[in-house]
């Protein structure tokens, strides 16, 4: 007996295809997580700076949805998860979308998907497409039993928010040329500017290969809701943003963005009938340590500074907000030196690569290496702090329960049914990858 059975009508079928296409822009593999009332599809990109998830409501999105928890030993699991190579899934769904204008002969009537797993059974993800004239196509895909890695977004600290029609937003995004890397979002005096640019510095005749830099200035009234700190530059990957808006623009919906400050994640959400889309993107940008209390490390280092130190620099250091989990010293220093107030357009940012939703253990040490010997003090500053105790995490308001839950009971020992409440399923960003693996081993 299959663990999971669900049936898609033609419309849901093409919606699922759209979601798979969107997930495919983030990662090669998608993670599927089934519980009794919903199916969650997620993808995390390789640099772990972008996370995409689609939540499909069991009784709304599907015409039939049945989840029979597998039993391991005597205990029943309340979740099933697997990882599938997205290209395999896409090739099954491709070009079969529901299109009333197209030739009816090849139109699909419904699609039944079942997952077989368990002892003595072949683990297969079976897609059965029922077309007109009694044509049935069956695909049996293999999958990997890996628990998904979810990015966590703390709504409580996200005091900036806006929402806008997906169609309007798509119209704006279409102005962006190709080749740029970053998107800066900035608002001042009732105007919002979206700037797509690249930080690559080119010289000589190479300068002509610099991609088009595009700024779109719009009235905040264009937004359904706009409540963002004035003069805040927040920078995300323009490619990720385009992928999201391309998907969001398929339906006429409202895209909502939530974020706190640069170098903390941004959340973008929108929903369609039976489907909730959520994206968490790492941000970069100029950090202004306004409301941030100086962190112990920074202030300690600051007090150690010789008095002869240039006031500007000392000030910027004491103001220094928590760095991104994996920021390199060079980056921090650059930021510190650049923290003079800047007008729009945004300053070129150092490479985005250091910004991830999760910390990677492997090259962490290398990241702390000095880049420039001239500035010993900055090095001292960062080397004094134990990374584990470093309060400078991406998600600074992470509560103790959550961090504790990292070492909590493994999920397959039973737990709650709601993913939103299960700490074990929700990994706050900035954990070590090794810890992440540990949970599910």
């Amino acid at each position, binding site marked *: 007996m299959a663990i999971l059975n669900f049936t898609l009508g033609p419309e849901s079928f093409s919606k699922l295809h759209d979601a798979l296409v969107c997930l495919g822009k983030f990662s090669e593999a998608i993670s599927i997580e089934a519980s009794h009332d919903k199916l969650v599809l997620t993808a995390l990109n390789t640099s772990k700076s972008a996370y995409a998830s689609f939540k499909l409501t069991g009784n709304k999105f599907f015409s039939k949805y049945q989840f029979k928890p597998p039993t391991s030993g005597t205990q029943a699991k309340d979740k099933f998860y697997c990882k599938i190579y997205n290209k395999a899934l896409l090739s099954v769904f491709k070009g079969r979308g529901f299109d009333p204008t197209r030739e009816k002969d090849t139109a699909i009537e419904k699609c039944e998907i079942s997952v077989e797993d368990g002892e003595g059974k072949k683990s297969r993800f079976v897609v059965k497409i029922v077309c007109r004239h009694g044509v049935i196509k069956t695909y049996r895909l293999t999958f990997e039993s890996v628990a998904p890695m979810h990015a966590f977004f703390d709504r409580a600290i996200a005091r900036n928010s806006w929402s806008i029609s997906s169609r309007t937003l798509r119209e704006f995004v279409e*102005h962006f040329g190709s080749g740029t890397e970053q998107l800066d979002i900035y608002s001042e005096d009732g105007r919002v500017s979206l700037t797509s640019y690249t930080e690559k510095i080119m010289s000589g*005749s190479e*300068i002509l290969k610099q991609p088009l830099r595009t700024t779109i200035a719009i009235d905040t009234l264009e937004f359904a809701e706009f409540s963002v700190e004035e003069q805040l530059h927040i920078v995300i990957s323009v490619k990720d943003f385009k992928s999201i808006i391309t998907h969001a623009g398929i339906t006429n919906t409202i895209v909502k963005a939530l974020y706190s400050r640069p170098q903390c994640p941004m959340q973008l959400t929108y929903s369609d009938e039976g489907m909730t889309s959520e994206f968490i993107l790492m941000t970069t940008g100029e950090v202004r340590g306004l409301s941030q209390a100086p962190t112990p490390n920074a202030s300690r280092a600051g007090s150690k500074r010789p008095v002869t130190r240039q006031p500007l620099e000392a000030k910027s250091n004491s103001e220094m907000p928590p760095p991104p989990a994996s920021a390199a010293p060079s980056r921090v220093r650059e930021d510190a030196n650049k923290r003079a107030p800047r007008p729009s357009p945004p300053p070129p940012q150092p490479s985005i690569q250091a910004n991830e939703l999760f910390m990677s253990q492997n090259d962490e040490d290398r990241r702390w290496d000095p880049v420039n010997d001239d500035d010993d003090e900055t090095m001292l500053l960062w080397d004094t702090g134990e990374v584990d105790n470093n309060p400078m995490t991406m998600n600074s308001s992470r509560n103790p329960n959550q961090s504790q839950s990292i070492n909590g009971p493994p999920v397959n020992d039973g737990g709650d049914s709601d993913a939103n409440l299960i700490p074990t399923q929700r990994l706050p960003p900035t954990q070590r990858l090794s810890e992440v693996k540990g949970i599910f081993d």
Partner: protein
Amino acid sequence: MRFKTSIRNIQTFSRLTTSLSSLGKVAWVRLDDDSARFTIIPETGTQVWASISIDSIFEDYTIQSAAPNNTINLELPLPPLNRALRSALNASSASIRLTKKDGAPVLSLTIITNTISSGNSANGFLNNSGSGSGNQDPFGDNAFREENLDGGRDREAIVTQDIPVRVLQADSVEGIHEPKVREPDAYIVLPSLIQLKAISDRFTRLTATSTSNSTSKASPKLELAANMHGGLKLRVETDALNIESVWTGLTNPDLDPGQVEGGLEELPSARLKARGPDAWARVRIDGRDWGKVLSVGRMDGRVIACFADENALILYVYLSNYDDGEEHSVLTYYISSFSV
């Protein structure tokens, strides 16, 4: 150094840059008081020298330069310019100016578009009043603006596209001259370019497939010939096939006597004419390159082809001016002939 102008005719400008970019990715642009000149000199293939009268694409044009004749020379990448102009196609207005951003020179294209926000304004009104961005004063500015909006005011988005450029020194471009070609043997007004392109491209493809196993892997060559009696021939010949299209009844334009040194009857074209309709001036041109040249057809200009027998083909594409002033816009294509 200053350059600023509004774009009067976005579509024409966009078509121009699209046509030019088929032959090369980077253009040398020379701007002065009277004209904007776009020059493409690819490593191989056809050169274009386009001289556009200011009025035909720009208005409110201001230029200021220390260089002689108030000239600005730029090196301009065409694909980003094309991409930028695409944003402007539905714009209510667009302007361009030379400026510096982050220390690098850019041509900054500012586009004002009206956004389509159907139903969104209602949303904005309702949600805004609910969520309140700190402005709870019912008589504040915000309240009045929202009310206006609900009445259906148009909202605009300002899109700025920055195209990287290099500013060239006057003396660095001094040595670049338009090619000199001997007096042509035949002048003829080309038939509809869309027709000519369809046939040329077909011939090119046929030649490419029929010679694919032969020794010459080079691009297919087309033979184009004109006489001074309204005839034009396009021909391909390979081992396997021999096709020819002939146009008749075309016009051989008269030359302006004032522009010709010596007598008209001394010219090679006059001699060719005297030899009758069976005398042809012939060139052999690269089929693929020719296809790119013919993309200028989208400019909807009048095209005169000048044949220098076995030497070169020159196309003059005359654009109809916005208000038919004295100045004319003309694109000149220099296409060299291959030997047999």
